């Protein structure tokens, strides 16, 4: 398991290669990369700044990866989330999940992203032509996370 909160960019190919390195038991790696968009709530977004709660962030990410590990048979998980100022098109978050078969990898990757959106203490502030604004939480994210409550 690898969990990182960092200001710098990440390389999806390098992260997937690192998961595969030296092992032949992995049958599937599912990955997700979230990007900063240039438009939100009808306004152009020129840049965004991501703030987080150092300490709790890593703890919350580890807790949701642990939960994924109890729900599915996973071989490895990597979560990288960037903080600081990002421009449209910049990658924000990476989740990669390795498993023996695709079903577990796909499901766990989606679960981790849904859980991250509602439980990991990150906040986005956007720069728009109308000024700066904090992004409001979306009820659709709560709905997506609640799908996994069983």
């Amino acid at each position, binding site marked *: 398991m690898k969990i990182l909160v960092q200001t710098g960019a990440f390389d999806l190919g390098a992260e997937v290669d690192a998961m595969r390195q030296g092992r032949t038991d992995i049958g599937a790696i599912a990955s997700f990369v*979230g990007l900063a968009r240039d438009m939100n709530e009808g306004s152009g977004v020129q840049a965004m700044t*991501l*703030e*987080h*709660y150092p*300490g*709790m962030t890593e*703890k*919350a990410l580890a807790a949701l990866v642990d939960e994924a590990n109890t729900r599915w048979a996973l071989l490895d998980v990597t979560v990288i*989330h960037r903080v600081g100022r990002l421009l449209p098109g910049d990658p*924000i*978050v990476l989740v990669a999940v390795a498993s023996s078969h695709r079903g577990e990898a796909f499901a766990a990757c989606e679960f981790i*992203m849904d859980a*991250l*959106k*509602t*439980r*990991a*203490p*990150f*906040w*986005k*502030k956007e720069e728009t032509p109308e000024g700066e604004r*904090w*992004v*409001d*939480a979306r009820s659709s994210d709560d709905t997506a996370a609640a799908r996994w409550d069983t």
Partner: protein
Amino acid sequence: MKAHMLYFARLRERFGMADEHLELAGTTAADLVEQLRARGGIWAEELAAGRAFRVAVNQDVVTLDTVLPDNAEVAIFPPVTGG
């Protein structure tokens, strides 16, 4: 009882501080929120009943009926928007 308060994102900006040390008047997270509301102004507005905010004690999100341990790290922040 003492608590080390942390404020994040929009609430950090509105309260005009990132952290402070508090002497607690009550025992639960709800008592603590009430103590902050009693300051009036922006505190009463942002922490009013029905406003969306989260309380974390020692880095775990808790419900307001939670009893606070002494010297807790208590964070108050808006609903999260990462990913």
